[in-house]
């Protein structure tokens, strides 16, 4: 790219549009890696806890949920150190902020349910995760993500009521796969 090249009005507008769109696509494509990361961590954690609970009969394995954010944020920070820092735009900031709020709600509610006031935390998290997924789809203007979030939120709520003990954890395995699929959809949408 040259700084002194004479440009026509059309060339200038083309340059602005192309640069702006390339940057926007890159930023949104970059957000896919966080969906894939958290989807993988959630799938593996929920499966591990399910299997440990199933084979030992001890629900205490659920304390491992509190390790999951440490692993997720640790890996995200590690990956961030070696990447070219991709900036945030309005959409990526809102999507990231919304999932951070979801994470804060989930961790706090789980801690309250375990240590203070027992509640049906699986049901609540399934609903708010479905909502967060739906809202991500709205912000990214992607119907597939909206529909996935809707099905997960409603289906997860019904599943959480119907299933007992460790079988409920499979909702989060499905949720993890859903995040992975969302990440892949975003990658395809903004390739």
């Amino acid at each position, binding site marked *: *790219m*040259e*700084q*002194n*090249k004479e*440009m026509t*009005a*059309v060339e*200038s*507008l083309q*340059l*602005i549009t192309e*640069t*702006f769109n*390339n*940057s*926007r696509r*890159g*930023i949104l494509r970059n957000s896919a890696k966080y969906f894939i990361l958290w989807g993988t961590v959630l799938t593996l954690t929920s499966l591990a806890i399910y299997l440990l609970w199933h084979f030992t009969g001890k629900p205490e394995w659920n304390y491992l949920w509190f390790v999951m954010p440490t692993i997720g944020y640790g890996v995200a920070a590690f990956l961030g*150190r070696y990447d*070219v*820092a*991709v*900036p*945030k*735009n309005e959409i990526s*900031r809102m999507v990231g902020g919304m999932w951070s709020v979801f994470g804060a709600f989930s961790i706090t509610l789980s801690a309250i349910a375990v240590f203070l006031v027992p509640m049906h935390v699986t049901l609540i998290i399934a609903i708010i995760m479905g909502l967060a997924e739906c809202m991500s789809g709205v912000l990214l203007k992607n119907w597939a993500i909206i529909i996935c979030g809707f099905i997960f939120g409603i289906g997860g709520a019904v599943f959480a009521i119907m299933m007992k003990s460790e079988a409920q954890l499979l909702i989060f395995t499905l949720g993890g796969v859903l995040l992975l699929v969302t990440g892949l959809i975003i990658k395809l949408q903004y390739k």
Partner: protein
Amino acid sequence: MFPKLDPLLHSELRLAVMSVLAGVEEADFTYLKKQTGATSGNLSVQIDKLTAAGYITVEKGFKGKMPRTACRITPAGAEAFRNYVDALKTYLSAGE
């Protein structure tokens, strides 16, 4: 009478830098280099010109142990960019 195009923005690399910065909160030097395909030296010179005009601000710091240069568009820069785009549209509509 056509509006005058801002000579500072009517340059391929500076316009590309402003186009990236117009859509983000802030961007690293390395990101701008990747997006524009410019050399470090050339990009530095153009960033200095945009900074001197008050169109962008540059903040130097560290990310971990690595030096980091973050660029951000200023309100004056955003307005100049809008005016430039409006002026381009005038040229194009006159040509139709």
